[in-house]
Each structure stands twice: as C-alpha cells, then as structure tokens.
C-alpha cells in the first residue's frame, strides 16, 4: 500500500453527500425540561459534540437539521413542537432524549403529558434514560450519523 505513488480517491456522489450531511448535523435548541441540562453538558467542552460535526445549537429551526427533543413534551407544547419541526428544512432528523419523550416516563398516568413524541413528529433515534448521560446522547448522535450514512449499527 505504501508505494509512494499518488493514488486516487474513488467514491460515489451518494456516499460523499451522506458523509458531508452526517458530519454537519446542527441541532435545534429544544430543551423542554431537565434533560436539557444533560444536552448542554453534551455540547459543552468536556464531551463537545462539535467533534462529530454538530457544531452549534441553532436557535432558529430554519438553520437546523436535527431536533433533540430534550425533556417532557406537554400537550400544550406539542402543537408548538410540531410547528417548529415543520419549519425545519429537509433533510431533518429527530432524537427523542429521555423516557418522558419516548413514552411519557413517570408522567404516564398524568393528564398533561404526550405519551411519546413519536405521536407528534417522526423519531430517528431514541436515547433512553432519566436523564440520559451526555455520553449516551453523544452515542445517540453517532448512531444517527451511521443511520444517515446508511450503515448498520453493529
């Protein structure tokens, strides 16, 4: 392999596109409850998801590719969440972070909580935990990157 001759990098357009796409996922600031603290920890210097291309949290849905739904989705918030999701440009992805977002969590018998954000928007990756550790969310983002690149998570 180390012949010293200049080689050629051969790839398909599809692969190049998904590689670029998976390494530039900008998340939308969607911290709804306590999971948002762990999401901030994921973004902060120690774990730093910008190593994986998720540079900065955007405050506008027009500039973001990924919605990390971090925290309990109440019935009152659900129409707003749907509206923000609709305002995001394609291709767009959703990570459901924490058990409240996945199926209602400790509020499953309550009157005010949506039993799973997948009733509102389609979800790509579920990150369980109450709250999930920043490492778990980082793993969730890496899993999403693999999904975008079309790899299986093995």
């Amino acid at each position, binding site marked *: 392999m180390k012949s010293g001759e200049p080689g050629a990098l051969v790839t398909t357009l599809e692969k190049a596109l998904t590689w670029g796409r998976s390494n530039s996922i900008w998340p939308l600031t969607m911290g709804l409850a306590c999971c948002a603290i762990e999401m901030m920890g994921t973004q902060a210097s120690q774990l730093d998801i910008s190593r994986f291309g998720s540079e900065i949290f955007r405050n506008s849905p027009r500039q973001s590719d990924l919605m990390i739904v971090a925290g309990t989705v109440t*019935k*009152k918030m*659900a*129409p*707003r969440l*749907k*509206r923000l999701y609709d305002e995001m440009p394609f291709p767009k992805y959703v990570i459901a972070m924490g058990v409240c977002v996945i199926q209602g969590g400790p509020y499953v*018998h309550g*009157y*005010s909580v*949506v039993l799973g954000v997948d*009733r*509102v928007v389609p979800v790509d990756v579920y990150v369980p935990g109450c709250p999930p550790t920043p490492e778990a969310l980082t793993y969730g983002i890496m899993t999403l990157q693999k999904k975008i690149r079309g790899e299986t998570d093995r």
Partner: protein
Amino acid sequence: MTADDSGQPNRGKDGRTIFNVDRDKLLEFMKGMKEKGYDHLSLITGVDRKDFIEVVYHLHAVERNEYVVVKTTTNNGVVPSVTSLWSSAKWEEREQYDLMGIKFEGHENLKRIFLPESWVGHPLRKDYDLGNVQYINMDSDGEDYATFDEGDGW
C-alpha cells in the same frame, strides 16, 4: 383536620408556624400579617380534602427571614382574593383556579393560566376523571383549545 379560628398558631412537622384562619376573617388577618412585615407572598397552594378544600398561603418576611403558613378552608370553593395586598397573588390564584377550581372572590381577571379555556374540569381535584383523556391543539390563530377527540390534538 379542621380549622380552629382561635388565632393561636400551631407548629408544623418542620417547626414552621401555622395559622388556621376562618375564611371570612382571612383578608383582615392577611392585612395584619402584611403590617407585621410579611411582605412576600411566596406561594399559594390548594389541598383537596374531599369534604372541603384547604387553601394554604406561605408568607415570608424578607428582612427577618421568617416564614409562616396561613391555612383556610372552604366548603363551596370560594375564598377572598388577596390580590389587593400582594400583586403576585394574581398569577398564583389563577393557577389554583385552573388546577384546583378554587374561586377567588375579588380577583380582577380570574381565568385559566395553563390550560386552554375549553378544558373541562380541574385536573388536581380528587373527583377529576383521568380516564376521560383530553387533548390540546392550536387553531390557525394560535389559540389553544382542548378536545376529547384523539385524532385532533396531542
């Protein structure tokens, strides 16, 4: 547990002073407490005791750093409003009206603060039927409305 309107305070489990005040004398008593230096109304809560409703006021004297609790009871869910003494009671009383169905006589704008106006019932009451699930959706004007139709809201 009933209110004795002797005006003598009890001690709570945590050592906090508790006054049990008759509903008719509440406003007068609260005016006296404000003059004694309890200038901060930190919390209003409601307790559904099935036969009657208890309304609990947590008062704080900021300069002396003293907390006291004032309790009153009502059979028909009506208590006098203390908004004339503490303006912060406006939202606190609206919250209690929204979730507990306590009506505060003399409140200038007593309507729901969290739930949509069309929500049926007060969810923190013991007789609220959790099996009859309600959903929230937003109309084209951005106004929330509650519905029993699962297909309409979340």
